[in-house]
């Protein structure tokens, strides 16, 4: 087991302990309910008709035959909800169902609500849609050159957004550099592949007399219930107060559920038309079409250094293939530039970012949003520079560390910075100094570092309201209920919330129940994305709990004849600290009391007659303590009763907004990148390369992550390991493959994310830098580790066999091509677009022979046919 020697967090009762997730039992026994498990009376099944064409105008939709089919309640199309929406206020370019055009194979055209799935599928086949084909764009560098037939009006040359940033003087920096390295890196498109497919159940209240529709309740697999409530309100043209969004258990998000996904609105539109509840669950293929994954990214990177490896200047040009809609695109492309900063001390930075539209499913946010592909490029380039200058990659990283507290050249505030410790830990554990470059040909070590935000300091909704608010209610029997809008998506949000509340109140964790992500019950929280929950909802919980503690303390102090500030809340008790030298130390009577509580009280579960039992217990305890002497402590429950007797119902509210000085600069695009705190990661990967087949085997990954403070170490380690797995997938095998805009591998039999089965040994190390703004010093731990894995593997491959892989994933074919190029051996005719040494880089090619289908038609003027704009093959 890793981290046996990790210094444990001291002085805390609940946090810092290896704690099972509060929802572990229901998830592992199968008792827990995910959206698709839910059912309400009269519920219909919704099925969506998707576009078979990548870019076409809809001339006519005739749904009359489908409508007439027995068992069909409603067929809805774009006309039923023509309002546009999008996750960003600047990107309202989506229709739930296409109104004028379809923009990718899989775009949403119509929805049938029927009694059964079979009837709904049959009805889809009866919908007649007439399309007029339009030229389609699949390669971002070609799409940027488009002169007509743009994918969206108002987006000339299909450029969704471009940003040009200059900090310091990069050109002067390059001139002053001793060595300048320049190269192009490509990371191909990947998707989240969360285990749970998206699912939404929408149900309207119906007035039985008038038949009029009332309030709407939506259960949905979402990371962002409040954004969903807002977008439903927008598109359905209903007040938000008339809409309740509930998030049941979610089986993984990774960003794929961090914006409003078409089915969430379509289900509501269909339910409105059918006047009956409608549930839609995506098939796996539809999940791939809904996508919102990590865009294919082309990074042209230039780095200038002094002879000793000190970085002087960096310039990056980044082109992202964003797919057909805006989604989070501008945020993604801004993160790619902003997070060039805040990890190393770089005085001069130039950045040109282009988010480009193409006729493919929209890309969005995915674990490590915006930073992963640029980090792959940067950390690889650093390794190349080290090879050229014969420097140790670890030492060069150490030379370039930031010196916090500081504000980076692009206005990012860094207070806590555990990167030096991270690097130290993985270097020591992997015996970097003794083993790198010395493992013999075919085996090698590589290092990569990364960082990530702990939530965005500026919310995408451009509002001054706090980013998270939490309410706490305490019952008379000492039960604590935390109401939080934060969405548990498997990352441990609810457990973190319960831990923070229990720590502040000094009560047993089992007293705390978390009611989360129900817009009718819980105060607003903007959602589970950008690794913001621990920092923001954690801080809000901490403040709400402090407010409750204050109320309990004032009542308890009266009872104990002391000042409220003398009281300490620990181990399910409220103790007078002045009398309690013995109370805080494990004094005998104190322990006896704890034992009594353990054996007789029932804080571990609800009891039908809890109140009566509690009163009897309190009576007997008070009796017992009267005999024992002065009143220097109360049980938590006694203190709660005292407070409720004194104040009435105990409720507390806490909220969190990032501090003003963490919110970044004022230039265009400055809103993305600033965060209250940054997490840091360093990793070393050990790989071997089969030089005959090109197969790469990862033997071990040492991964250190600075999470500020580990509120739940087992959860932090799980997040580190999960991030490394996801990084491994992108490094070695995951890649979305297209043909004429059609996804060739839209299933888990063709697209594989690594799981525990193919996992190498991963040794996680927790580094605690105790952030001044984080709750108990905590910051992010769920995303930051991912980005380090890919370059660590690329660099290890270089250490093993001396080839530099600048295109991910490093499939056996790509590795073999690079090995053959290195040896000037005969080239093999590899899968089109795969060979990184061949000029045609864009992977858009024929599918498996045995999956060879007809495919969508192309427009006669399509550039891929006419060749006027060059083939889809690109020509860099």
């Amino acid at each position, binding site marked *: 087991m890793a981290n046996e020697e990790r210094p444990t967090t001291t002085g805390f009762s609940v946090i810092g302990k290896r704690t099972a997730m509060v929802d572990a039992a229901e998830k592992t026994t199968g008792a827990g309910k995910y959206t698709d498990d839910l059912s309400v009376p009269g519920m219909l099944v919704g099925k969506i008709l998707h576009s078979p064409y990548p870019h076409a105008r809809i001339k006519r939709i005739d749904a009359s035959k489908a409508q007439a089919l027995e068992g069909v309640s409603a067929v809805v199309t774009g006309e039923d909800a023509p309002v546009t929406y999008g996750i960003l206020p600047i990107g309202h370019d989506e229709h739930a169902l296409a109104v004028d055009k379809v923009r990718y194979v899989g775009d949403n055209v119509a929805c049938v609500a029927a009694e059964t799935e079979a009837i709904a599928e049959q009805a889809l086949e009866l919908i007649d849609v007439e399309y007029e084909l339009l030229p389609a764009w699949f390669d971002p560098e070609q799409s940027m050159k488009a002169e007509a037939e743009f994918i969206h009006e108002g987006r000339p040359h299909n450029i969704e957004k471009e940003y040009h940033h200059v900090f310091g003087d990069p050109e002067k920096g390059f001139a002053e550099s001793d060595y300048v390295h320049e190269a192009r890196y490509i990371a191909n498109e990947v998707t989240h592949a969360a285990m749970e497919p998206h699912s939404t159940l929408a149900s309207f209240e119906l007035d039985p007399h008038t038949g009029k529709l009332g309030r709407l309740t939506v259960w949905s697999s979402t990371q962002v219930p409040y954004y969903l409530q807002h977008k439903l309100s927008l598109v359905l043209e209903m007040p938000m107060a008339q809409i309740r969004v509930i998030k049941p258990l979610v089986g993984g998000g990774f960003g794929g559920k961090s914006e409003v996904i078409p089915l969430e609105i379509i289900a509501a539109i269909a339910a409105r038309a059918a006047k009956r509840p409608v549930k839609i669950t995506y098939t796996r293929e539809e999940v791939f079409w809904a996508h919102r994954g990590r865009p294919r990214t082309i990074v042209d990177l230039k780095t200038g250094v002094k002879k000793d490896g000190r970085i002087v200047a960096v310039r990056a040009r980044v082109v992202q293939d964003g797919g057909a809609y805006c989604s989070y695109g501008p945020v993604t492309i801004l993160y790619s530039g902003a997070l060039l900063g805040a990890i190393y001390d770089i005085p001069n930075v130039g950045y040109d970012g282009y988010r480009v539209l193409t006729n493919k499913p929209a890309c969005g946010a995915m674990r490590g949003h915006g930073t992963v592909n640029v980090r792959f490029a940067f950390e690889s380039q650093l390794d190349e520079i080290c090879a050229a200058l014969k420097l140790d990659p670890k030492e060069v990283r150490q030379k370039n560390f930031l010196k916090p507290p500081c504000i980076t050249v692009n206005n990012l505030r860094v207070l806590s910075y555990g990167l030096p410790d991270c690097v130290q830990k993985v270097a020591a554990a992997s015996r970097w100094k003794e083993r790198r470059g010395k493992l013999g040909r075919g085996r090698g070590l590589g290092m990569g570092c990364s960082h990530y935000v702990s939530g965005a300091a500026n919310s995408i909704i451009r509002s001054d309201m706090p980013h998270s608010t939490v309410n706490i209610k305490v019952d008379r029997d000492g039960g604590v209920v935390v109401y939080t809008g934060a969405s548990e998506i498997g990352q441990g949000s609810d457990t973190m919330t319960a831990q923070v509340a229990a720590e502040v109140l000094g009560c047993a964790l089992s007293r705390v129940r978390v009611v989360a992500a129900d817009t009718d019950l819980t105060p607003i929280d903007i959602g589970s994305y950008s690794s913001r929950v621990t920092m923001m909802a954690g801080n809000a919980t901490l403040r709400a709990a402090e407010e409750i503690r204050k109320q309990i303390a004032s009542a308890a102090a009266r009872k104990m004849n002391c000042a409220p500030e003398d009281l300490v809340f620990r181990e399910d008790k409220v103790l007078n600290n002045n009398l309690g030298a013995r109370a805080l130390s494990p004094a005998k009577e104190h322990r006896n009391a704890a034992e009594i509580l353990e054996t007789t009280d029932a804080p571990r579960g609800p009891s039908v007659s809890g109140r009566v039992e509690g009163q009897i217990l309190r009576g007997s305890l008070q009796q017992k303590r009267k005999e024992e002497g002065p009143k220097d402590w109360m049980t938590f429950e006694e203190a709660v009763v005292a407070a409720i007797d004194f104040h009435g119902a105990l409720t507390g509210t806490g909220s969190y907004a990032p501090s003003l000085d963490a919110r970044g600069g004022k230039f265009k695009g400055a809103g993305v990148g600033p965060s209250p705190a940054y997490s840091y990661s360093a990793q070393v990967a050990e790989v071997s390369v089969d030089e005959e087949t090109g197969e790469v085997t990862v033997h071990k990954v040492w991964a250190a992550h600075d999470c500020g403070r580990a509120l739940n170490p087992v959860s932090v380690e799980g997040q580190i390991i999960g991030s490394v797995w996801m990084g491994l997938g992108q490094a070695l095998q995951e890649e979305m493959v297209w043909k004429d805009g059609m996804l060739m591998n839209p299933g888990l*039999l063709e697209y594989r994310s690594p799981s525990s089965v193919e996992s190498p040994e991963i040794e996680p190390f927790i580094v605690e830098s105790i952030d001044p703004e984080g709750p108990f010093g905590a910051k992010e731990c769920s995303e930051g580790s991912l980005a380090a894995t890919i370059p660590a593997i690329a660099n290890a491959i270089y250490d093993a066999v001396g080839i530099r892989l600048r295109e991910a994933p490093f499939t056996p*074919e790509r590795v073999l091509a690079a090995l053959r190029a290195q040896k000037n051996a005969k080239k093999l005719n*590899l899968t089109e677009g795969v060979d990184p040494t061949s000029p045609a880089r864009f992977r858009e090619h024929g599918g498996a022979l045995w999956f060879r289908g007809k495919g969508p038609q192309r427009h006669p003027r399509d550039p891929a046919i006419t060749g006027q704009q060059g083939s889809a093959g690109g020509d860099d």
Partner: protein
Amino acid sequence: MIPASFDYESPKTLNEAITLLASREDAKLLAGGHSLLPAMKLRLASPALLIDLGRIGGLDYIRDSGETISIGALATHAAVAASRLLLASSPLLAQAACNIGDIQVRNRGTIGGSLAQAHPSADYPAAILALDANIVATSQSGERVIPAHSFFTGMFTTALRPDEIITEIRVPKTAGSGTVYKKFHHPASGYAVVGVAAVVRGATGKIDDVAIGITGVAEVAYRATAVEDALRGKPASAIAEAAKHAADKVEALGDNYASGDYRRHLAQVYTRRALQEALSSKRK
């Protein structure tokens, strides 16, 4: 993801199954269901009648028949992989079986079903070919023994007639030979991008006889006869050169994951490795 409607029969005896199969042209046999059911859900197959062989008892044996080992068609991959009899006297089939899919697939899938499916990247065909096994097909006109080399006729097609059911597979014992199955797994599906099965008979560095079956490269699994011819009676040192002919005269398939050229290259590398390993495993 919903199959078209179909009739379903679950005969209790082989005779009933044969009669049912002969009575309907649009019937399909269901064994483990790992290929047929997904195809039906995707509506790539829409049989009007499914004849479920799962209730027929006594067809999942693996027994010693003297010169050969007889395997009932309903033996699961897991049973084949774990058979002590096979591991002791003809291990190649078990070596291939333990590489199939994952635990769930191996527990459900059957050898007869897999052979009848004849997937171009299935594992068994390479081993069946290298072993010169015989496949017994039964119909109303009785049993017919089909030698492996004439069983696989193309992608998803075999020498089976529409009214025939595979009932038994007979594999020769390979005592005195080294056998190895080497496989390059597709990372997602687990199918063989390339799978090489080798049987090598020889002594102290000399190869007396050799048989190589290769799957995953072409539309149909094949015997690498050029390699075999180049090695009979030759020393082990000839392996490296001979293996370069592993995909001679073969039209290699390409897909999203691996091009035909790459598969051809892998066939050469894996053939060499399989042969070397088979020879050294024999020496032990």
